[in-house]
């Protein structure tokens, strides 16, 4: 009885803390800094350069949010988390928004009390094997040992896939992508499975990339997207529309280079609305009307962010694929700013 009342009291305190956190937008403005949850390091998505500055695909979206809210893309404090600690860190208020190559799922949305804001990268889980294994399809992987990151959706997908196909496998649990790469190359597992983007990125760094093949089967949908704590709709709106603005800017050809020019002389009403020349869309989300202009100026549009960090001209060399604009055969489709 006593224990129960203590637990209830604890829960009540936890609840009150969550409710008090409701005005995240004001907190961020008052703090003058955005706390953004990222990974402890994933090639192309988040890493530090030689001066200790954070770079990467996810990092650029964080900087975009900071540019919209605080007017400066550098006013971000990065909170590096592992796959296991990311949601706890978000819910405990250690971060304001999470951009950590995180798959949007129903249980995370509903059960973990997160609010997902959209998708910034469409991915799918694949398998990589050495050519020496003589395997050409995932259906031939019965009895294989598989390097798998714990605490991720890929771990669950793997179990599902092997159960559905009636095959057995031996999991080799690992913590990070880098660890997986080392273990796989050392031959401690036959198969390395993670999102196809991660596989391609890892393979690009092998000494003999041609000896490794990525099997044709993509066994899951992995829409990666940002999240915020549940219960602060205003803050969720800010982040959702920053993401949409970055995507829509590419659709209308607004780049970091021509944004000033377009703002001075908008070629069409859609662009005028995005850049705050027409309407007061910024004010609707608690910002000023030049919010999207600052975002694009700071980090560029979706295509620029993609090309700079993970696109075909980088070491990672990912193709746009599903992540092309809907007009170009992809599924990137932003709700209109109007």
């Amino acid at each position, binding site marked *: 009885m006593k224990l129960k009342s203590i637990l209830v009291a*604890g829960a009540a305190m936890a609840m009150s803390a969550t409710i008090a956190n409701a005005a995240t937008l004001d907190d961020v403005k008052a703090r003058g800094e955005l706390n953004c949850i990222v990974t402890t*390091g994933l090639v192309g998505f988040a890493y*530090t350069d030689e001066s200790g500055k954070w770079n990467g695909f996810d990092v650029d979206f964080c900087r975009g949010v900071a540019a919209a809210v605080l007017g400066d893309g550098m006013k971000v404090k990065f909170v590096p988390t*592992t796959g296991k600690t990311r949601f706890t*860190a978000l819910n405990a208020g250690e971060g304001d928004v999470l951009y950590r190559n995180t798959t949007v799922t129903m249980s995370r949305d509903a059960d973990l009390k997160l609010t997902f804001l959209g998708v910034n990268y469409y991915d799918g889980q694949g398998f990589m094997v050495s050519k020496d294994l003589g395997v050409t399809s995932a259906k031939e992987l019965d009895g294989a040992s598989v390097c798998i990151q714990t605490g991720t959706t890929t771990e669950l997908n793997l179990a599902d896939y092997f159960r559905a196909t009636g095959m057995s496998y031996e999991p080799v649990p690992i913590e990070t992508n880098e660890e997986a790469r080392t273990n796989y190359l050392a031959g401690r597992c036959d198969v390395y499975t993670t999102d196809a983007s991660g596989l391609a990125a890892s393979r690009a760094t092998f000494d003999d990339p041609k000896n490794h093949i990525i099997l044709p089967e993509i066994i899951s949908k992995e829409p990666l997207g940002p999240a915020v704590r549940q219960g602060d709709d205003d803050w969720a709106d800010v982040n959702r529309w920053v993401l949409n603005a970055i995507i829509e800017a590419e659709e209308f050809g607004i780049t970091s280079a021509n944004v000033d020019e377009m703002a001075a002389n908008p070629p069409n009403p859609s662009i005028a609305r995005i850049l705050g020349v027409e309407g007061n869309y910024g004010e609707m989300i608690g910002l000023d009307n030049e919010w999207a202009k600052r975002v694009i100026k700071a980090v560029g549009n979706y295509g620029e962010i993609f090309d700079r960090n993970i696109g075909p001209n980088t070491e990672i060399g990912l193709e746009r694929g599903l992540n092309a604009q809907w007009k170009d055969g992809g599924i990137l489709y932003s709700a209109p700013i109007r």
Partner: protein
Amino acid sequence: MNITTQSYKPGEHPSLPPPRNLVGPVKWAKDNLFGSITNTILTIVAVYLLYLIVPAILDYFFFNAAFEGSSRAECREIAKGACWAFIDERISVFTYGFYPVEERWRPNLAFVLLFVALAPVLFDKVPYRGKLLVFSLLYPLLAVLLIVGPVSVESMHFSQGVSGPLTWLVIFAFASALFVYGSKTHNALAMVVGIVPAGFVLVAFFLSDALWISIPDSIGLTNAADDIYIFEPVDTHLFGGVLLTIIIGVTGITLSLPIGIVLALGRYSNLPAIRTLCIMFIEFIRGVPLITLLFVASTMLSYFLPPGTDFDLLLRVLIMVTLFASAYMAEVIRGGLQSLPKGQFEAADAMGLKYWQTMRHIILPQALKVSIPGIVNTFIGLYKDTTLVLIIGLLDILGVGKTAISDPAWNGLSTEVYVFVAVFFFVSCFGMSRYSLYLERKLHTGHKR
């Protein structure tokens, strides 16, 4: 031999050298490497294994390694082995983390002064030891001021209360008066009650931005408008790399020893309340993994603190690491206390020594000496455990390495980073273990077996 030709008196003949085949490397090899058939086989196998491993390792890490280049691909063009250019390029991040470049002289200075402060504590033949020990005592304050910079007065709640600074001045005046009164009348209680708040106010004022920014600002030494300060505050989340490892390690090590001694004495005490409290604390901390405590410090704590409280993450981690190490330290020192025969306590009692006198002069010097290997063991364990802060998002030397590996230009160089980190930890920990051997030899008074 004829006894008359003997040129030495009986008993004065100098010792002859041993026969040739009983000394020297040949003899040693014969005894130790080829003493028996089994040993001979083992030697040959071991030499073959060394032949396989050592040249390959040397080749990879030195002879065939690339020391220049600006990306992994360039490294691979130069040589097939390790790519040290990566470590070279990232050395400043490995050392300071994200600490602002123009302020890096401050941790440097603090690091140099650390040795000045440590020397008189570690070695007793240092010149001017007495004066240097005073410096050692003040060093923590100086280090905080140097590395963190002035602490905002508002965050210390100076400006809150009835009338801000005046309240604190009154508290300080009363407390120091009480301390002076206590020291005059030899009243220990009055001294303690006086010194704690007075010291707190002094420390707070010394670290506050009122002293280091507002006052210099008003007399023109600094300029708030142009952001020219003597000490710019540096946010603790910018700490990283070796800097962070040393901050956590040194704080944990220096604080856990005194707290551990107090806990051990408490557990050994005859007063049931103190004993129970110490046992509960020690057993609770020892029953929980460090990683759990860190996790509680980083995420759970904010659920229980009042909303809006911004309790520095690094400070939370330092507290948790110190508490954790203290509990282990207490048990190590209790082991030392157990090793003393009861007669030591009884003899001290018989001489009429009071509790603290007994402890200070009879018990602790012996108990601590016996516990040195265990104490240093705990230190080394704690130092290596600092890498666990990676889990809660602080980037120590290992964490910085992990984020650096993910740079596309350098991706795939994990071996180099892990070897570098391993060498760093080996040097630090080996130094500590050598010092403990020196200390044991110095304090050796014939009890050693």
